């Protein structure tokens, strides 16, 4: 029979290299982690002061911001979409936070002569709702009006950035120290406080990452996100409520961006309307580096976090070595391309191994 022939051939070809193939496969599977160890070791040796506690904290603060955005982005990409608006949502949320800290809400437009002031918790809630709201708009455009995700979120990228500029007419909101009278003087803790020696922003990232990883792997919602990205029609016919899933991922991405907006404005004690420009690209890069497939259906939160660390360590390490920022940009691009190429190699190898196992 021809089929046994074919199977036999496959066996003889691969059989000799089987252990090597599976070792290689494992290595490829862990590639982001391997890359992390490589860049870490490299800079630990090549860059003086890289291994100091202070530097580690700085890097982790930088990484937390990108990782937060990348977590939201990972869900969106797994569901088969893309969210270009996150950087602008960061900017808008920073401006909203700054405005609330400085002015509260002036009720003059209602003919009343006083304004409402908020404490830190209330400010955070409002800002997070703003982020979720913009994500909801993205989701509505994409599900109800059938706008392509790229275009819909490109639109909200501009609208949200414009809104951020309008908020202060392009100026910076300075001195966000808050007011003890209103209970907003604790606002600075989000960006510069520490808990058990780690920055609060890192704790926020860890919490969001754990929740996201749980959602992705241990809930029907997570499974449905993968299904929608893997085959939208097939998922719909299996009873998955595709529109709801899409709404969720964009709202979640908006929420993550709002966190970042809060953290940055608190860290700097100021809100600038250009905050977050091009952050969306770094977030996409971290997700892709972490093994998320741009065609949807594939990706892991843990991978994304590691991806964000690779990008963050690469950026800070190169700065410490005094490499020009132009070269940094080139290197970041090369790393992303290499990640995707390796991903393709792994896919091919994996498919071959599975086929072979089935033949046995």
């Amino acid at each position, binding site marked *: 029979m*021809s089929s046994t022939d074919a199977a036999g051939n496959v066996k003889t070809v691969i059989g000799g290299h089987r252990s090597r193939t599976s070792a290689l496969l494992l290595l490829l599977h862990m590639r982001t982690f391997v890359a992390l160890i490589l860049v870490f070791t490299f800079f630990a040796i090549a860059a003086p002061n890289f291994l100091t506690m202070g530097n580690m904290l700085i890097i982790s603060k930088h990484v937390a911001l990108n990782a937060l955005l990348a977590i939201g982005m990972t869900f969106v990409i797994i569901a088969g979409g893309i969210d270009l608006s996150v950087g602008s949502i960061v900017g808008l949320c920073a401006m909203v936070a700054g405005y609330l800290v400085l002015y509260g809400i002036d009720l003059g437009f209602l003919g009343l002569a006083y304004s409402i002031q908020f404490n830190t918790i209330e400010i955070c809630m409002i800002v997070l709702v703003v982020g979720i709201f913009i994500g909801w708009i993205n989701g509505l455009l994409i599900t109800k009006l059938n706008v392509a995700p790229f275009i819909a979120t490109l639109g909200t990228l501009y609208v949200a950035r414009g809104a951020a500029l309008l908020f202060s007419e392009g100026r910076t909101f300075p001195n966000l120290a808050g007011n003890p009278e209103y209970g907003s003087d604790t606002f600075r803790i989000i960006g510069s406080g520490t808990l058990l020696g780690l920055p609060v922003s890192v704790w926020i990232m860890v919490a969001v990452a754990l929740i996201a990883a749980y959602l992705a792997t*241990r*809930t029907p919602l997570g499974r449905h996100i993968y*299904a929608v990205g893997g085959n939208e029609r097939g998922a*719909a*016919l299996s009873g998955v409520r595709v529109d709801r899933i899409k709404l969720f991922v964009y709202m979640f991405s908006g929420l993550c961006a709002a966190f970042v907006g809060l953290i940055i404005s608190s860290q700097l004690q100021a809100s600038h309307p250009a905050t977050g420009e091009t952050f969306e690209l770094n977030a996409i890069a971290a997700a892709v580096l972490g093994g998320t497939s741009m065609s949807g*259906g594939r990706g892991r939160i843990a991978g994304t976090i590691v991806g964000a660390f690779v990008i963050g360590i690469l950026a800070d390490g190169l700065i410490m070595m005094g490499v020009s920022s132009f070269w940094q940009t080139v290197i970041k691009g090369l790393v992303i391309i290499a990640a995707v190429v390796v991903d393709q190699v792994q896919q091919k190898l994996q498919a071959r191994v599975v*086929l072979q*196992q089935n033949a046995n």
Partner: protein
Amino acid sequence: MSDASDEAHPIGLKIRNGSKIYPGTQALKDVDFDLRMGAVNVLVGENGAGKSTLMKVIAGVEQLNGGTIELDGVEVTFADKSDAAKHGVGIVFQELNLFPNLTVAENIFVGHEKTRGGIHIDRRAQRAAAAALMKRLEQDIDPNAPLGNLRIGQQQIVEIAKALAENARILILDEPTSALSATEVEVLFRVINDLKKQGVGIVYISHRLEELIRIGDYITVLRDGAITGSRSMQGVDIPWIVANMIGSASKDFPKTVGHDMGGEVFRVENICLPSPAGGYAVDHMSLSVREGEIVGLYGLMGAGRSELLECIMAQHPNSSGQLFISGKPLKERSVAGRIRRGLALIPEDRKRDGLVQIMTIRENLTLSSLADFTRGFHLSLKAEATKAAEFVKRMAIKIASLEHPVSSLSGGNQQKVVIGKALMTRPKILLMDEPSRGIDIGAKAEIFRTMRKLAADGLGILFVTSDLEEVLALSDRILVMANGRLTGQFPAGASAADVVSAATPNLNKVELS
């Protein structure tokens, strides 16, 4: 007799002992085929009988594993489709390969543009040549018109012109009338007659038997990859064709298990779906299914069968009509809601609609019933894996591991995963769209046995097929659809000829116009 036909219609292309083997199946077995020039050579057979394979071999899309092809008495091998085109063989696929955004002339010359110096496209020459072709086909189609503006019948003419532009002397038409209106069919038949007179040898494939008898000069019937009948069309009638298509020895269909049917479990009333081409794709369809009953819905391509199932599964928001499950109206507008009420669909296109290819076997099996393993938010992976393993065993799915991607399975095993997924939702009615498409004979028989067993357990099954033998052997009751309407209803054991003629009611209309 053979001398006379040799003179009038010389053999242009000859296949001797042609065989074609795909992994797992033999699509063609020692086929001897004569293609006569200046005549319509009709090819007929059930789905999977080997018609498409034979046609692809002639057009160079596939190559024979054994046997020879002779063109005008000289042995040839076609490396690919363009090689065959160079030898004068053109093919018009059922799915038109045209570009709606380009003009008629650009479509005709796509891939072999008329150029000056190999770079500059000579639009004027292309337009002139396209106009000449349209004249030859006696069509009033403007070469400058964007193709997207043409009716589907005119697009088909453009596809034929495309083949003729490459000097096709042999033209293969695969189900050319499946999307055409009655008048468009008349136009096509006139074109075919003209081409015949110009000496073109035509291979014509269709399921519409009356049409074949009307247009054909020679007929070849295929069954299971072998030729079971080949002769001049004179004296051929539908019973002869059906007999050769199906044969006397039936395939391995499970015999009806004697069991009592329960009461009506599912009823649809007046389902209507407007068609984008005007009229209705599904036209006031009503039917009912009893517990434990297998209802076979037979119809030709484009009869509206799949659309009906899609309406039932809430895929067409602008459809109308009422659905009842166990007598209670079904008001849910979402797929999830309908699944909850006891409907389950096995879609026709497994790859596109049935499975999420990059997910694992386990994840695909449980995709519709995750709620069963969830408490609050938490999904119990253990309970899920146990259930998935149970269904793998129950459906006898051959797998190495539950965690492999479902795409690594064979077609038959993939289909079992789709069925397993549907059954896991504990449906009362199973809707199956072409459940045996694209799977090998062994897996087919297994799927059929599964259907029988499920019916014996009290499940109502409505299955759609364009395989005559399948609908005759499996159904407790046979419904026939044509043009979106119910055109026939037969008990088990109905004759093939009755079912076929119910499925092609527009023959008379064709002759009238």
